[in-house]
């Protein structure tokens, strides 16, 4: 599925190690991932399999003490070899991330408007006024009602789903080439999850942004990702076109994941039918 041209992002032999009292532990082991222009790539696996560590390594936000090895090539540069100042010209600007829990990821004491515009002003050098106009546009883009009012609101005044929409708007503010979404629906109510997924899908089509979509939910993966990497114990065990993987899994682990997904789907259905 990768195009003939260089991929947008290519992770080569990434390892992440973390020091513990009983010696260093390797959380990600020699992982290769490629993301092409405009492509939506999924990372699947259970929690603790190294998906989030991979995303953190790309953004340079690994927990204190963790070390990353290998290369992460983006726009001709190895992100792992950049200084903090150089990396700061990339993250938030060329690559942005949406975290799992918008309630924790948004600053509680800053308005949505401030959080939408501060990196825009910093990276793009626009005026405050231009940034504010763009903020309203962005909120409209993510379908937040009454955006003029919403820019002045604080995160606690929003519902969970709206907070995640705002967080997505913040990530898109500088028109990044790559958007990383780390379990962006897991912390949300089941009822709003579908809306957020549709939003990602639509944004990808409208803006052409590439996406690295991380989830443990293969059903979600099926509805959004072109290609999928399946993670287990810090390494990729299977990769390919999403539908192929889901229909003809070659690795035992993938089969197990699909089975557990089927079971939880069945349970959900039983619960739904049980409701009056």
């Amino acid at each position: 599925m990768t195009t003939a041209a260089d991929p947008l992002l290519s992770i080569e032999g990434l390892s992440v190690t973390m020091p513990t009292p009983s010696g260093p532990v390797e959380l990600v082991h020699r992982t290769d991932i490629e993301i092409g222009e405009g492509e939506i790539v999924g990372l699947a696996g259970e929690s603790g399999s190294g998906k989030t560590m991979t995303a953190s390594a790309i953004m340079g936000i690994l927990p204190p003490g963790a070390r990353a090895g290998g290369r992460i090539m983006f726009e001709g540069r190895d992100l792992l070899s950049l200084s903090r100042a150089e990396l700061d010209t990339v993250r938030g600007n060329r690559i942005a991330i949406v975290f799992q829990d918008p309630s924790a990821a948004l600053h509680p004491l800053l308005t949505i408007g401030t959080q939408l515009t501060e990196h825009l002003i910093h990276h793009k050098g626009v005026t405050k006024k231009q940034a504010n106009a763009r903020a309203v546009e962005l909120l409209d883009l993510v379908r937040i009602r009454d955006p003029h009012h919403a820019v002045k609101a604080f995160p606690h005044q929003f519902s969970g789903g709206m907070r995640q929409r705002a967080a997505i708007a913040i990530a898109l503010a500088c028109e990044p080439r790559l958007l990383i979404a780390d379990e962006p629906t897991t912390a949300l109510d089941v009822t709003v999850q579908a809306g957020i997924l549709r939003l990602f899908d639509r944004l990808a089509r409208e803006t052409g942004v590439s996406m690295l979509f991380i989830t443990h939910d293969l059903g979600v993966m099926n509805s959004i990702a072109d290609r999928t990497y399946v993670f287990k114990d810090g390494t990729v065990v299977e990769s390919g076109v999403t539908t192929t993987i889901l229909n003809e899994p070659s690795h035992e682990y993938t089969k197990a994941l699909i089975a557990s997904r089927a079971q939880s789907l069945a349970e959900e259905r039983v619960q739904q039918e049980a409701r009056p």
Partner: protein
Amino acid sequence: MPPLLKMIGKRLLSALVLLWGVTVVTFLLVNVVPGDAAAANLSQQAYDDPEIRAAFEAKWGLDQPIWVQYVRYLGNILQGDLGTSQQTHRPVAEDLGQYVPATIEIALPAMALAIVIAVGLGMLAAMRKNRPTDTGIRSAALVGLSTPPFWLALVALYVFFYLLGWVPNGGRLSNIYDPPPAVTGMYTVDAAIAGQWDVFGDALWHLVLPVGILTALTVSGLLRFVRSAMIEVLDAEYIRSAIAKGLPRRIITWRHVFRAGLLPVLTVSGLMLASLLGGAVLVEQVLSWPGLGQYAYKSAISLDLQAILGVTLFIAVVYTLINLLVDVLYSVIDPRIGAK
């Protein structure tokens, strides 16, 4: 913002209840205890004369039942009359008007300096967590917390006055100067108002040591809070978001970390200011600073009932008002509270 007003109203009400409780407790404390005010204030000869003693007790209402004394006291304080000090023979309110500004003059600058220093050092320590800078700052705070305040004042006096001669030997003004005409009761401010710049300079010079000592003590009390509050903020996910946005460190530090870490610091600072106002007693004692602490000490030693009640009531009012102010400030800074 009606919820905010409602919150303030509720706080105000509970503050009033607390203050009423304070009058009851202090009054009972001073009246039920075995100390005999007549014995403490009259000479042995006068005390032995039953007529003089009866006159003394009648004059101060000591012969009335306790609840009559209390009701009378409560009625008086509602009119701003805190009674008359047996020791200075002046209205307690007037005494407070004289001693309180002296304490404010050292407590407020000390508090302001302490907050700035503690927040700065606390943030630095939090950002360099478990590294030498952090260890150094924490050790200094620990020493400050473990030092008897009066001993610290003595050591400072020994070094900066006795050995180095940089500061005066306590007091508010050198003997050659008269106090400036009283407006605020704070010598530096009054001297500035009157344009007496030599007096101003001298008063300022006398402020250096007490303010410095109180600042050091307050910083060590605050640091721990600031550091742990800041560490908690630095660990928060929204700070990770800010880093992932590629914001410069300056903006992350001051807009994201500082603002969030300030909330808990604000609460503690309110408490510290209240205890500073009254608790400067030990430092005031060493530096012969005629402030509220010394007044409280002298009244306590001489069992000056009205004065003790006046001081405790005053401090409780200040404490309650500061807490109220902190609550209001809190809801201004933290948008989540006003909305509840």
